[in-house]
């Protein structure tokens, strides 16, 4: 009966409505077909969840760009910043109060990447190296924010222009971010790296100085928690 609810009411416990063929194809042909080919790409609507391209930057040509960066090639820097920044932006945005905070973190992260660029080795994958730096940028940003907030005395209530309320952010993504906010920090960052930045378990383990087994455990706990949260919100 829940499928009826999806099709007729227009959403799955608050999820955006999909047409009937989407669900039919999901069940008949599997998610790869229904999500990637038939369901979303036919609509061409990015805001409603179209993943016409992966969240993950194409890694194959990133190491040569990074090597160019190490050798002082300005063109390589331009390309690298353009290719990696969206992933970093998503990573920071999902945990920031406002888009401006995420921009600050993005800039801070690039300063740190610049200072640490000599520590990258071309034989190693680039994304774990970048995200290891991004992770600590985010942690330090969080600590800085906490420290600042503890010293501030609010004199007026400012309008909340948080990332979650950004006008171009889709409702479903907003909902996803709200769900993520309810996860413990360690689980949230694993889900962000695995599913938002589309990194592999091995890459997340490297980025977090952890082991693959530990990452799997955190991810599975996060899945269980997300199921609970989704159910609690009325599925």
């Amino acid at each position, binding site marked *: 009966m829940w499928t009826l609810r999806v099709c007729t009411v227009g959403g799955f416990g608050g*999820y955006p409505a999909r047409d009937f063929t989407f669900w039919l194809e999901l069940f008949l042909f599997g998610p790869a077909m229904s999500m990637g080919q038939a369901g979303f790409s036919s609509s061409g609507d990015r805001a409603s969840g179209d993943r016409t391209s992966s969240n993950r930057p194409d890694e194959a040509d990133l190491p040569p760009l990074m090597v160019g960066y190490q050798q002082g090639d300005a063109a390589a820097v331009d390309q690298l910043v353009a290719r990696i920044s969206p992933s970093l932006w998503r990573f920071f945005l999902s945990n920031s109060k406002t888009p401006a905070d995420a921009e600050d973190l993005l800039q801070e992260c690039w300063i740190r990447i610049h*200072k640490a660029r000599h520590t990258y080795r*071309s034989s190693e994958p680039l994304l774990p190296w970048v995200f290891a730096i991004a992770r600590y940028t985010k942690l330090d940003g969080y600590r800085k924010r906490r420290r600042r907030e503890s010293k501030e005395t609010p004199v007026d209530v400012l309008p909340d222009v948080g990332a979650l309320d950004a006008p171009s952010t889709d409702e479903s993504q907003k*909902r*996803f971010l709200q769900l993520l906010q309810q996860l413990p920090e360690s689980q949230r960052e694993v889900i962000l790296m695995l599913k938002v930045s589309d990194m592999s378990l091995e890459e997340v383990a490297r980025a977090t*100085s952890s082991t693959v087994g530990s990452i799997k455990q955190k991810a599975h706990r996060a899945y269980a928690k997300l199921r609970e949260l989704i159910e609690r919100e009325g599925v």
Partner: protein
Amino acid sequence: MATELKTDCRSLDAEFDGQWGRKGANLSADATRHIGECPRCLALYQSLYVEASLPEQRVSPVVQRGITEEIRKSLTPVTPLGSTPVLAAQLAAAFLVISVVLASTMKLVGIPVMSGTQMVGMSAVLALGLIVISRSLAWQMTPGSRQTIPAWTAVAVLGMGLLIGMLVLFPVRTPQAFLARGLHCLRVGVLVAVPSAAIFWWLARRGAPLNLTTLGATLGALAGLVSVALLQVACDLQEMNHLVVWHGGVLLLTTLVGACMGRFFGNRRIVDKKIIRKK
């Protein structure tokens, strides 16, 4: 029916571990069927796949341009850092050089007091500790390294190894001037650890350590290891109580002080600099 029972929510989670990319997850037929039957899993899949696709082109071009311009200002060629084994070997070599130089200034009265077994046993424990700690430090110098042994585990392995070595290899005797002799060893150990830690810090700062608390603890442990090694050959009171409390105490103290200093500097690291101020 067997296939119906094979895939449940938990095994679906295992399939969620894979990377998804633009065509979604490559879920098995069983998993797909399970998603069709389980509303909770469908909602989770939809949440992870569809909703996690946060908007891509949201980075402000002004910010992006500002980042590249700022980087270009100080864009100079850099020499990549050596590999993890090379860095670990450099740290181990520094350990040996520091130990030899400082030992040359001391009377090595501990060597004749130790038996062959004690000598070999403690050398093995110290060598193992050196390998584990220097590797851990080398991993920490390079972000995104595959750390097969977490840093705190490495420190714990070193501490436990030394403790077991001291407990097993050395006899329990009635303490002779336990406090006075112990404090002397503690003082010498700390005096040795300070310059050692400074040299190891100088070597480690060539990398880009991220967690300064962990780095401080590891540096403290390595500096403490130099102290323990030197006290082992320069102290003639080779009895278990003295070794565990005072020599082991030096290692514990340097590790804790290192961790505290790392935390202190980590708190100061929070930078307020912005590349661009839009407003």
